[in-house]
């Protein structure tokens, strides 16, 4: 190992940074801006996906019993619900309680004192482990003896599920778009950087440098640009997250944002990775164009 050569190589890379500060700042800025958008997008998407999931998790199935259901039937039903692994929570609501709930929900508009008899049946309130299970479970429950009717907001759940998949796909499409845009912008930037140094590249070749030799400092610069850009983006994201995000949460107190779902180290790693790969790849492609002899 000839340390002088390593030092020379590192010197080459360092020189690229000190002498061509304009270009480096440009490249780093571009990577940072793109990754900032990408990071913000990823963060928001994860949070919103979790929010949607949480909403879906809260879907409940109301199982109304026939008026003639005996305590024995009720106990048997409860036992079968508990035995079902798909069902997470089971709650029995006798008709008296149901009336109280109804009154609470209609905000006292219904004058229950006028009712001579409770018109409501007994019911079970059930939650399942995954929103996707709701329609199937509800269908099975309807066929049980002692069950009169099963209500879970038919239609709405199906639609919500569909919306969820659509949003997932839009999310993936957006991320793909961002990465493509970032790669184009950065490879453009690198191409310009190489273009600005085309004379130097040709001189290096005339003096006997191999393609790899000419390419390496550019590749390393690309890598460093990408990683530094990612670092800048991450710092900006952290700042925004620390200053703006609490205010946003404050403005939306009734939405249960669970910020903890965003795995910050993973996000940071992702951004560094994307930055490095984009920087290196863009440099590799762009510098290749000027190496045809």
């Amino acid at each position, binding site marked *: 190992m000839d340390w*002088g050569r390593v030092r020379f190589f590192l010197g080459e890379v360092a020189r690229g940074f000190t002498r061509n500060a304009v270009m480096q700042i440009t490249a780093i800025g571009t990577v940072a801006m793109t990754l900032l958008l990408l990071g913000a997008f990823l963060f928001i998407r994860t949070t919103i996906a979790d929010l949607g999931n949480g909403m879906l998790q809260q879907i409940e199935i109301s199982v109304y019993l026939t008026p003639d259901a005996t305590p024995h039937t009720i106990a048997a039903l409860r036992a079968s619900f508990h035995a079902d692994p798909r069902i997470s929570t089971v709650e029995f609501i006798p008709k008296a309680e149901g009336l109280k709930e109804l009154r609470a929900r209609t905000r006292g508009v219904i004058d229950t004192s006028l009712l001579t008899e409770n018109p409501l049946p007994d019911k079970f309130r059930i939650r399942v482990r995954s929103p996707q299970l709701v329609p199937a479970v509800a269908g099975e429950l309807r066929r049980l003896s002692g069950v009169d009717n099963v209500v879970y907001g038919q239609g709405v759940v199906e639609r919500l599920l569909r919306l969820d998949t659509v949003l997932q796909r839009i999310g993936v499409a957006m991320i793909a778009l961002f990465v493509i845009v970032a790669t184009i912008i950065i490879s453009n930037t690198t191409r310009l950087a190489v273009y600005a140094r085309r004379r130097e590249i040709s001189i290096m*070749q005339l003096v006997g440098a191999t393609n790899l030799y000419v390419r390496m400092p550019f590749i390393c610069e690309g890598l460093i640009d990408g990683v530094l850009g990612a670092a800048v983006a991450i710092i900006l994201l952290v700042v925004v997250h620390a200053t703006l995000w609490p205010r946003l949460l404050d403005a939306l107190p009734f939405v249960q944002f669970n910020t903890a779902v965003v795995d910050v180290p993973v996000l940071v790693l992702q951004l560094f990775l994307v930055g490095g790969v984009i920087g290196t790849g863009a440099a590799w492609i762009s510098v290749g164009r000027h190496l045809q002899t």
Partner: protein
Amino acid sequence: MISLRSVSLLYPNGVRALDHVTLEIAKGEFVFLVGHSGTGKSSVLRLLYREIRPSSGEITVDGIRVDRLSSRRVPALRRHLGVVFQDFKLLPDKTVWENVAFAMQVTGAPTREILRQVPRALDLVGLSHRSRMYPDELSGGEQQRTAIARALVNNPKILLCDEPTGNLDPANTTEIVDLLLRINLKGTTVLVATHNQAVVDRMRRRVVRLENGKVTTDKERGYYYLGLGQGQVLSG
């Protein structure tokens, strides 16, 4: 060492720069290439270090068929040549020292060797005091001497010089030409394209004259003006 066989060169823009040029240069020779401006001297040199390929003809340099050389092999060829370019071609973001060292670094020379050879080369051209300056901080002649130092530093087997004294004063010119001569005496083949009549006439070495892309004179111990305009072709 160098051989061109019926080499023609047609540039993409239609200029016929060389027209069936045949030229043999033996190992250890010192040859001047003279001729009018735009007559094809630089083109000959460019063919030898494979910046361009001939339209037809065979070119051999140090046993390598340059006209057929694949792009991948070009760096290896160039490492055996020292070239002083007419427009210097210095790297603007490297100092004089680094520009000269770079030519060694690309050959993979060990650092110890670089640290020994670079100061020696700079000393030969009288630029030791400028080693930390960048090319655009140099005078024209200093740039030219940097280019010469870079061409010498690898102790090449073949030295190609394109107008190496165009920006030098007579005293510096004499020194540089003496330097080329010393290098030649150590066995290096030297080919110098020049307009400097005084240098050619004082040296009395082989002179090859190009006219309109053709070799019109080729004479051992020749003079700059010998045979000018007479169209006589002597094969070397």
